[in-house]
């Protein structure tokens, strides 16, 4: 009987797609770049935070709340950056690319390591290095596609 109810409901339900509705094999380093920018932005905001007078309890709470939020976002976006980079590395790039760009593995390895550093630390230097490495990957990626795509930052 439950199956009959299920089938009736199924006929009425709107279809929601969980499959590939575009040509698969669409990759773009932009998703890593956007997440990387968020990491760098949060790092800078964390470094710019000034602690309030410790006797002001309310200001202290606000300060810790803001800091915790910045940290949470930084960690989350660093993870996303790493995942997006790994997708490019493992799914998009193929052996012929490696022949043309012999340091490809090193670049991705360094980029992934920088994601980890940016997640663990609050380092403007590492955040800048991460963005520089993503830019390098952006350059290689679009070169393999034979297209010239300008490196543009969402955060300016």
């Amino acid at each position, binding site marked *: 009987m*439950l*199956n009959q*109810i*299920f*089938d009736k*409901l*199924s006929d*009425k*339900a*709107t*279809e*929601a*797609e*969980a*499959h*590939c*509705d*575009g040509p*698969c094999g*669409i*990759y*773009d380093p932009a*998703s890593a770049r956007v997440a990387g920018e968020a990491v760098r932005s949060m790092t800078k905001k964390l470094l710019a935070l000034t602690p309030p007078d410790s006797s002001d309890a309310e200001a202290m709470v606000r300060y810790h709340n803001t800091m915790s939020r910045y940290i949470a976002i930084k960690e*989350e*976006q660093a993870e*996303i950056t790493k995942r*997006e980079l790994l*997708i490019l590395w493992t*799914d998009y790039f193929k052996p012929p690319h490696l022949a043309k760009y012999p340091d490809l593995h090193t670049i991705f390895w360094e980029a992934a390591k920088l994601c980890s550093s940016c997640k663990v630390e609050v380092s403007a230097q590492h955040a800048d290095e991460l963005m520089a490495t993503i830019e390098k990957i952006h350059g290689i990626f679009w070169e393999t596609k034979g297209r010239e795509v300008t490196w543009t930052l969402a955060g300016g």
Partner: protein
Amino acid sequence: MIPVALKQRRRLPRDLIAWALGRRRLFKVQGESMAPQLRPGDLVLVDLRTAARPGSIAVSRHPVKPGTTVIKRVLSRGEHTVWLGSDDPLVGTDSRHFGSVPDRLVYGPVRQIWRRHSPPNA
């Protein structure tokens, strides 16, 4: 028809009432990109009154292809947008391809997942 998670069983009465009041909407899953949690043919009841949080599965209008509805996992949230991903990134098309999705396009988070119970010889 079996609920796949115990947690949603506890929510069932609340969700059924909300559904009757028009606060939930039923969708049917197509495709494999959310496997193993969602299989093609599964029914999902979506909460139209709550914003989808990171980690939850949400149903949304496609930001680029009008008339298309997608079901994906919310990976992160911006100020007025969400970033949607497939559980199986090799199969799905998601925010990696169509970018972040404005909140107004998102129906909401999935509250109930129902799968047809097939008899063993079917």
